[in-house]
């Protein structure tokens, strides 16, 4: 038996581990980098003990959609600042998108990024490769080679693959690899130049719209292509009610599509858009109350498989531009769990174990990753949060380099107090 070098005991917390159907007060014993025991009472003199009385202990959260901006855009975020932001939000695994400079579209860059993730070593950073070379939608990227060196999925996130033929080729080519394609679904010509949802609000403000029909059309096309190619397709940051319906009916027909949504699209609406401040600008855009309701219903009934943040940091000077010129997106790792708890769990609209499932075992299973569970023997990735801790979002205090958020100033209830990754405490409040 291997020699124990370190033990960490998390005592007295309410342990929620949806993968094992556990919701009970338990102690969690971590030995080195794995879970050694989950038991109502672990009586052992550990090297390190965390008193989790009154707190909730869950598997380390997994976010399959972040932008950590390496390589090339370290002024927006880097693996270290992004890892700290993730850890502060309870995340122990994130998958970073390839829309970088240069685009991560070849095995050398994937390897370099995997090495870079290991070098930072705070949390598990997974690398998503581009679907097409340069994300230009014209030529397949080196998908098999990127798969071989460890890319976890492929995506042209930020861009819709305009050519149906190109997209179909990608689905066919990927079949032997069993890696998911993550699709940014907004039909290009319908959203060109648009910067907010098309609605009475956009008409009033004079801002060009990005109508939800653009998303619906794109998702409908790719549902049909997934069916036709007998392939798996994953829809990124779904925001429209009609799209939820299309995905639901496609799943009912047995087609292997899956979907994610974000806390912002679940909670924020286009009447918050103030053209003097681009904090609310994001693609796809914030939509309407009805869309938020449909997303929540989809999350609960399983149409939407997992929750992601689409953490999209930018430099302030890129965000502080006229609304239609500003960069889209904002950081989300440090607010996601608390926003979901405050808006949906404490209000009784979403069971806590369902939320944790959507942020842990569901994405792990979907993308074929380890983690997302507190099973004995699993990697010791754990998040501990205080459900009664009330706090106010102050973007200036973010670990992320991006110090802005549409949630800035919002009062939230529930906050991560400890994050353990690979058996090491990587964040505590």
């Amino acid at each position, binding site marked *: 038996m291997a020699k124990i070098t370190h033990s960490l005991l998390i005592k007295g917390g309410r342990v929620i581990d949806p993968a094992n159907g556990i919701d009970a007060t338990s102690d969690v014993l971590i030995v080195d980098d794995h879970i050694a025991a989950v038991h109502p009472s672990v009586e052992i003199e550990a090297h390190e003990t965390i008193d989790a009385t009154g707190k909730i202990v869950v598997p380390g959260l997994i976010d399959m959609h972040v932008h950590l901006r390496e390589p090339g855009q370290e002024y927006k975020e880097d693996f270290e600042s992004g890892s700290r932001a993730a850890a502060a939000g309870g995340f122990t695994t994130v998958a970073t998108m390839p829309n970088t400079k240069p685009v991560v579209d070849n095995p050398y860059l994937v390897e370099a990024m995997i090495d870079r993730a290991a070098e930072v070593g705070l949390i598990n950073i997974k690398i998503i490769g581009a679907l097409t070379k340069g994300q230009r939608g014209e030529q397949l990227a080196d998908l098999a080679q990127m798969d071989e060196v460890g890319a976890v999925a492929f995506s042209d996130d930020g861009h819709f693959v305009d050519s149906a033929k190109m997209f179909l080729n990608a689905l066919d080519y990927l079949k032997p690899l069993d890696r998911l394609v993550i699709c940014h679904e907004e039909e290009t010509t319908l959203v060109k130049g648009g910067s907010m949802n*098309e*609605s*009475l609000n*956009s*008409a*009033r*403000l*004079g*801002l*060009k*719209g990005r*109508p939800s029909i653009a998303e619906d059309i794109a998702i409908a096309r790719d549902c049909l292509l997934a069916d036709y190619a007998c392939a798996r397709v994953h829809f990124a940051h779904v925001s429209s009610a009609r799209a939820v319906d299309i995905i639901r009916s496609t799943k009912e027909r047995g087609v292997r599509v899956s979907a994610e949504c974000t806390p912002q699209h679940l909670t924020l609406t286009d009447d918050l858009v*103030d*053209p*003097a*401040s681009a904090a609310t600008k994001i693609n796809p855009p914030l939509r309407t109350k009805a869309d938020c309701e449909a997303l929540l219903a989809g999350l609960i009934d399983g149409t939407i498989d997992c929750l992601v943040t689409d953490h999209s940091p930018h430099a302030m*000077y890129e965000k*502080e*531009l*006229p*609304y*239609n*010129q500003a960069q889209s997106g904002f950081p989300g790792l440090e607010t996601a769990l608390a926003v979901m708890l405050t808006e949906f769990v404490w209000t009784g609209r979403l069971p806590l174990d369902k939320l944790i499932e959507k942020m842990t075992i569901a994405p792990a299973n979907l993308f074929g990753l380890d983690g997302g569970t507190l099973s004995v023997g699993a990697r010791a990735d754990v998040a501990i949060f205080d459900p009664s801790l009330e706090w106010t979002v102050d973007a200036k205090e973010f670990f992320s380099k991006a110090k802005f958020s549409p949630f800035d100033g919002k009062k939230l209830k529930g906050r991560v107090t400890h994050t353990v990754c690979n058996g090491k405490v990587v964040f505590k409040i």
Partner: protein
Amino acid sequence: MQSNVSIAGRDVIQIADFDAEQIRLILNTAVELKSVLKRSIKKLPSLRGKAIVNLFFEPSTRTRSSFELAGKYLGADVISINAATSSVVKGESVRDTLLTIESMAVDAMIIRHKSEGVPQFAANTVKPIVINAGDGCHAHPSQALLDLLTISQFKAPLDDIKGLKVVILGDILHSRVARSDITILKMFGADIHLAAPPTLLPRFVDPSVTIHATVEDAVKDADVVIVLRLQLERMQAGLIPSEDEYSRYFGLDARKLKLAKPDALVMHPGPQNNGLEIAFDVNYSEQSAIRAQVNNGLAVRMALLLLTLSGEREVL
């Protein structure tokens, strides 16, 4: 009566930020200033010692010269900066440009920008009074004020605008003038009708406004017809087929105007494409108030500068 109504120190970003009493104050002041404009020596001392900067990130002739002269007739020092010849083309950010101008101890900035929201951003960012001279497709408050002044001059005093049928023709989708006009006319109870090719209308329109498929339907018994400028790039964008087709169906000519009330007023924010959205003879007809609009624009801008910068109107 209006002693407690004031817009002193206020930014002028959009019509919706003001109430009817404040708009009355601005228009009444403008009417008084129009008499000053008839004097051989027009210059007033009211804003002597005040500095105003025209900051135009987008080309403009009439609005810029109108604000510039408005400031000068009131005794202020006015300079105009064109973005095309300024440090903006060297990559300076909007914030840096604003802070630079602010550091020169100016009292007001008149801002035009092709992007919606920039004047509000300026108002949030710098201390001087900010007046929006047009931001993208969003707002053009001084145009709305001068249009209301023109309607009140020729058609009905402000109290009687309620129920007046006002038709706006043309590219509503891209028009900050239409948005601002609709807001101010609704505030005074006008009955607003629009006609445009559906590609030039927002998909979502305030239900209190009536949309017509044809100009003929829209202008029937109208009291006022406001014709909007058609930007020629709309053809390239695939929104309309040709100038010829547009002018045939949506241009205001004498035949279509005959369907309006005989004394209907024709307005246009300028500059006009003669023979496209407005026929030459309509532009220069007895019913056209287009030149009066320009004069009223000057008076309204003087009123805005006077009331926001000095807070007084008893200086005439």
